Structure formats: C-alpha cells, structure tokens
C-alpha cells in the first residue's frame, strides 16, 4: 500500500499535475484580479447594446418576431434595478444566432457583431490568446 502511494506521488502523471497546478494558481491570481473589471464591462456593454437596439426599433419594424422578442427581453433585463446579466447574455445569444443565419441584418446586426468582437477581446484579455495547456 505504501509502495502504491509512493509510486503515485512520484509518477509522471502527478508531476504533470503539480506543474499544471502551479500554472493554474498563477492563472487564477491574474484571473481574479481581472474579473471585477471584466464583469462590469460586460454588463455595461450588454446594457448599452440592448438600449441602442430598442431605440432603433419603430412601430413599423420589419424584423422577425423572434428578433423583436429577444431585443425586448434583453432591454427589460438591462433596465432592471440590477441588470440581469445572464438574461441579457441569453438574448444576445439568440441575436447572434439570428445574425449567423441571416435573419438579422443591417444596423442591428452590426451592433451584435460589435458586441461579439468586444466580448471576445475581453475574453482574450482575461484568459489569454489560447495557448494549449496540456
């Protein structure tokens, strides 16, 4: 039993895990430092996007019903006393789908694309450019 435990401790797998854990601690420290700013920027960006899109809609809007509903729900989530980030992200996902499928086009789609680009940049700033960790 003692042999098994010792073998496990000195195994290449455990050594790899220790190295990964050290890397993870460094990553977590940087990540925790950046999370508040990331969250604040994300909420602010989503709120701004939904407010902009809502004001662009008029009574004769020709957008598909699913798009109008997503913008409406996102606008409401953005303007709660405490903006509901998860709800806003869910609606932004619906709009990203509509944009990918060509259902949403023009200035409204540009707002979605702008958000996706900024969201990706924020993700890169907090997670890095994508080095393979294994």
């Amino acid at each position, binding site marked *: 039993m003692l042999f098994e435990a010792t073998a496990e401790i000195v195994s290449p797998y455990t050594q790899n895990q220790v190295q990964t854990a050290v890397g993870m601690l460094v990553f977590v420290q940087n990540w925790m430092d950046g999370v508040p700013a990331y969250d604040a920027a994300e909420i602010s960006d989503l709120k701004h996007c939904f407010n902009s899109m809502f004001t662009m809609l008029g009574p004769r809007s020709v957008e598909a019903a699913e798009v109008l509903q997503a913008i409406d729900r996102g606008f409401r989530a953005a303007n709660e006393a405490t903006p509901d980030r998860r709800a806003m992200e869910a609606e932004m996902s619906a709009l990203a789908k509509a*944009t*990918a499928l060509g259902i949403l086009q023009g200035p409204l789609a540009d707002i979605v694309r702008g958000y*996706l680009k900024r969201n990706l940049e924020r993700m890169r700033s907090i997670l*890095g450019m994508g080095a393979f960790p294994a």
Partner: protein
Amino acid sequence: MDTKRLTDYMRSRMPEAQDLAVVDFKRIPGGSSRETYSFDLQWTQNGERRSRPLIGRRDPTGGLLKTEREREYKIVDAVFEAGLKVPEPLFLEIDASTMDRPFFIMHRERGRTGYGYQMAMEAPKLREKLADDFLTELAGIQALDWRAMGLDFLGVPESGEGAARAVAEHWYEIYEKDRLEEHYPLLDAAFAWLRANPVSTDRITLVHGDFRSGNYLFDENGLIAMLDWEMAHLGDPMEDLGWTTMPLWGHEQLAGGLIDREKFCRLYEKKTGSRVDQKRLTWYQILGNAKMAVICLTGICDFTQGRTSDMTMPMLTLILPMLMGELGRHLGLL
C-alpha cells in the same frame, strides 16, 4: 489501478506465464479521456524470460469524453487487424469489479508526441516525412471496408446530409448538458448555423474523430502509431481533414505544425484520390472548433462538479478564446 490487482489480472489472462511480474508501473499524463498507466510485464514461458512494454487505459471518474471502452477496443482491434499503425490491443476487461472501472491493455509503442507548436520545431525533412506518413494513415482509414470489418455497429449515418446532421446533433446535445446554464453567443450561433446548413456527402468512411498533432507517436524515422480512438465513428471523410487542419492543432500556416495547409490538402488529395471539397471542409472546421469548445466545457463541468480532480480540466478554459475567435471568423460575426 494498482500492481497487485493488475498482476492478478494478468495471471488470469496468461495462465501459461510463470513468475509473472508487473514492473515500473506508473500513471502517465496524456490521453485525458482515460486514466493512462505505463508498465512492463515480465514472465517466463517455455523456460525463457520475456518482457513486454504495456499501457493500461482505465475509464475515468469524469473528464473530457463519455465514450464506451468496448467500442474503442473493437475499433482499435479492427484497425490493427487491417494493418494500420496502431498499438496492438491485447485485453479488454469490462467487469468493473476487477479494477473498480473497466479498462483495457495494449502494447506500449516507443516514440514521442507533440502539439502543433512543438512539431513546428522539428527539422523540415522530418516534418515532411511525418506529413506524408500522417496522411498515408488517414487515407488508409478512409479506404477501409468498414462493413466487411464489422464496424457498422458504430451506427451508419443516412446518406446525403445524415452524417453532418448526426455529428452536429451529437455535440449540440453535449453542449446543452454541460454548459452549466451559461450562454456562449458565438458557440450558440455556430450550432444554429451548423444545424441549418448541413453539408452532404455521398461517401461514408471510418472517421478517427481526433486525428491531429499530439495524437500520434513518432521518432526520427517517421510516424509509429495513431492513438486515442475513443471518438471514432462512421461519417464524412472531410471530418478528419477539417479537424486536423484547425489552427488549434497547427502552428501559424503549418497544418499540424508540419507543412503549409494548402500543400497539406494537395497531399491529402494525392494520397486519397479524392478532391478536397472546400465547402464541406469549412463546415467541418466550424464543427471542429465548436466540438473542441464543448469538450472544454465538459472538462470544466466535471471539474467544478467534483467528477474529476484532473488539474488540466479547468485550464482548458484558456483555449476558448481561440476557438470562439475561429467560430466568429468563419461565420462572419466579428
């Protein structure tokens, strides 16, 4: 796994072996979807002392993939019998009481592995040779008569769009299960696009499912063996080519860190005799990026929910920006 139970098991499977011993038993990193152990088996037979390097692969408690080891074993066995370069499979044990969880034993090949950025540091001549060997193996896989080999148990997709639809649905279902109620707009958009625009193929082949840098052993003479067959299935031959040419597995313009992507595709055409269909290739590259993002989310989900303590799982988060960036680029969303 431990040496005593492993020794007992090997004795039961090799009754003709005398003085059987498991030596240099150790768990090794890699192959994150299974626990992987390396050991040497020594025994006496007909008065002669023998030794064989082996690998034990046991089902994990959690991790990246949820696949059946019996299915993987049967595929590797069939491919080995067909003469392709894979480690010889030796024993499959699906009785969980033997070693807590099902496992299988295979021959341990020599050689080393490397991700794309590591392969790019190898000598140009070796990289050319590896690209040639790598695509020879892929052509070999795609030329197999899977029906005659009894591999139709993997599930035969319907003709036309069936293969694309099946694989997109498979990964979408896993995404829905493992996204922990989070929304990833680019990933959501990718799955919506993939499901709405399935590509069609008139040829169904065996698909390795993880045919890439880091999943083969090589030395200075070339490729020795393809590893990690747990995602193998029947589908569109463009699936493996799309996956292996993803930037994640390469380095700058080098497919797999070996040779230029364009040259790589031309070499594929030469090896297989089939034209690279750019539309299908792009579809499977989009699928590949979405699939890899889902695999990362599954690892993170299992780590946060305590099904695995493997430290590499949360670190997989680090590759999400690259994958999302590729999805956005392909779909014109950035």
